[in-house]
Structure formats: C-alpha cells, structure tokens
C-alpha cells in the first residue's frame, strides 16, 4: 500500500478529499525505520528551516523524557497520529524525545514545505492546520485531566504525563 492509500484509510484524514490528500501526500517524505530509531531528541533545537513534523503511517512511536539521564517512556502513539508539531509552531526546543517502537513508517513534512502549503490558501492547508490544532487540544486535555486528578490527591497520572515515574523520582 502506498502512502496515499494509507492516508485515505486513516480516520484523522477522513475529511480530506482525494485531491487534497494528494497534495498532502506530495509533501510527505516517507521513511521506513528500524526499532529504536530516534526521530526527535528532547532539548534539541527545532532545526530551523530543516525542522520537520511527522505523520505515523504504520507502526508505533514512543514519547520519552529524560529523567536523571535515563529516557523514560511516557506513552506511545500509533497510525495517523502527528508528532513534532509544537517546535514547528513556536521554534523552541523539542519538549520530548520520539523513538520508533518496532519497525515504523512515517511521513516527514519539512517546515519549508509546510509553510508553502499554508501559503497556498487551499482548503487542504486549512484542514491540515486543523489536524495540528486537534493534536495540541488532545495533549492539553490529557494534561488538564491529570492536573484535576492531582487535585484530589491522585498524582500518578500527572507524574506519568510528565515523565516523572514514582520509581525514578525522590
């Protein structure tokens, strides 16, 4: 199955028309990587004009945070999820690491191509920006839920979300 067909079957892209998906597909640089491949390193710069964000086309990507020199797995992402979006928006350092969990296929989009698409004034650009916004909204909701749980004395979800697991802290 090629990347266009994969995109067509991802629920996150279900509202894109075929011609819009073709435009998105042309932006993607498809990469097949092995288990353990590091896509992003926490604390590194976004990469300036060479910065990239990624769409998971197949496989799993783990999100990690460095705790006392040890990478701690926060959670995993699967097909159709985006990562690397925040640093592209604010050009700050990467807030977490991202590593392949098993053989994984991703579509990488460079900042340059993304900016060109957003400047294209097309519905595809608006829908893709909506996809990025949804990804951030999902992160915000998870953090909000963890904070609310902490208010009742349940700190484990918050520690998990932040990469501060009980066994490594203290």
């Amino acid at each position, binding site marked *: 199955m090629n990347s266009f067909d994969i995109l067509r079957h991802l629920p996150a892209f279900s509202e894109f028309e075929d011609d819009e998906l073709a435009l998105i597909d042309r932006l993607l640089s498809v990469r097949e990587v092995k288990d353990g491949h590091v896509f992003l390193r926490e604390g590194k710069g976004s990469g300036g004009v060479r910065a990239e964000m990624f769409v998971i086309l197949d496989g799993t990507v783990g999100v990690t945070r460095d705790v006392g020199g040890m990478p701690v797995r926060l959670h995993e992402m699967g097909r159709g999820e985006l990562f690397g979006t925040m640093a592209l928006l604010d050009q700050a350092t990467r807030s977490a690491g991202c590593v392949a969990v098993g053989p994984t296929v991703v579509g990488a989009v460079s900042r340059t191509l993304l900016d060109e698409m957003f400047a294209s004034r097309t519905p595809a650009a*608006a829908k893709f920006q909506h996809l990025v916004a949804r990804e*951030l909204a999902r992160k915000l909701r998870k953090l909000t839920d963890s904070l609310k749980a902490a*208010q009742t004395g349940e700190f484990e979800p918050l520690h998990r979300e932040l990469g501060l697991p009980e066994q490594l802290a203290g």
Partner: protein
Amino acid sequence: MAIDPKTQLCRRLVPGIKPDEAQALLDRMSRVTRHPGAVVLCEGEHSDALYFVSEGLLRVTVDGPDGELTLAEVQPEHWVGEVGLIDGGPASATVSAAEESVLYRLASDDLIELRVSQPRLATALLRTLSVDLAARIRHSNDFLVTQLGGTTATARPVQSGWLTSALSRLLWGTGGSA
C-alpha cells in the same frame, strides 16, 4: 475609509488577516449577551464554539476537591472556548459572566465551512489558536516539572495553590485565553 472597531478587534486576535477576512469572520459570528451569573461554557458538557469577549467580564472556574476554584477573569478582547471549537469535546472549565457581557460566538460548523470558503482566514485562525495551545502546554509542562521534580507520586502532598496555578496556566495561559 474607517475600519469598524469589531473588524479591528478580529485583526488583533488573528494576526495577518485582511479587513475583508475579518469581516467574513464577523459575518459568521453571532452576537450574544450574558447577564451576570449566566453560564457561557459548563465544565464537562459538550462545547463546540469559540467566544470573543467584546464587552463585560467573564470568570473561569473549575470544580475542586474543596468546591469551586476561580482560575481567571477574562477581559474584553480575549477569547474562550477554543479547545471545544477545535475538537468539539467537553469544556475543561466553567465560564460564566461576572458582569453584563457581550460576546461574539463562532460555532464549530462555521469553522468547518470557513476552511473551504475562506481557507486563508481559517488557516490563520487555526494557526493562532495552535500557537497559543502549544505555548500553554509548554509553560504548564515546565512549571509542573519544576514543582514536582525530585518528588514521588505517592509522597507528594496535596498543595492546591500551585496546582490551581498550573491549571490556570493551562486553561487560561499567559497569552490571555481560556
């Protein structure tokens, strides 16, 4: 030709849009008034609209273990409800009028329509909201890691002061939106 103050407000809230795009945005927004105490968004309930505050004052609260916690007050020229607009999920906090307030409401369906009819405007609006969300997530993460660093999940006592501060940063942010 003088630009309408509401058009100017839209252009301040969504940098980079043209006057005609600000007008297109205004055309899709409905003017609503809320008396003091009236609820705009209710924590936990389905929410699918963004509100620009034009006049008055709103209050952002959440249910805490010891009752209602006030996180922020929202002045004119700010917005609330952007997460619900983006993903249509439940409101993370309750927003109610603290004073007689005039709001402009943009529904999720209108955003969906704008993506096709005014893609440049929709992209600019969603990008502005995305940058704001990313800043709030990053600031909250940094703040929380500082607060929790070196402690264990089970040993941490409940200190609602900094937790409330963290929630405020996350739901309200330093940039002025809830």
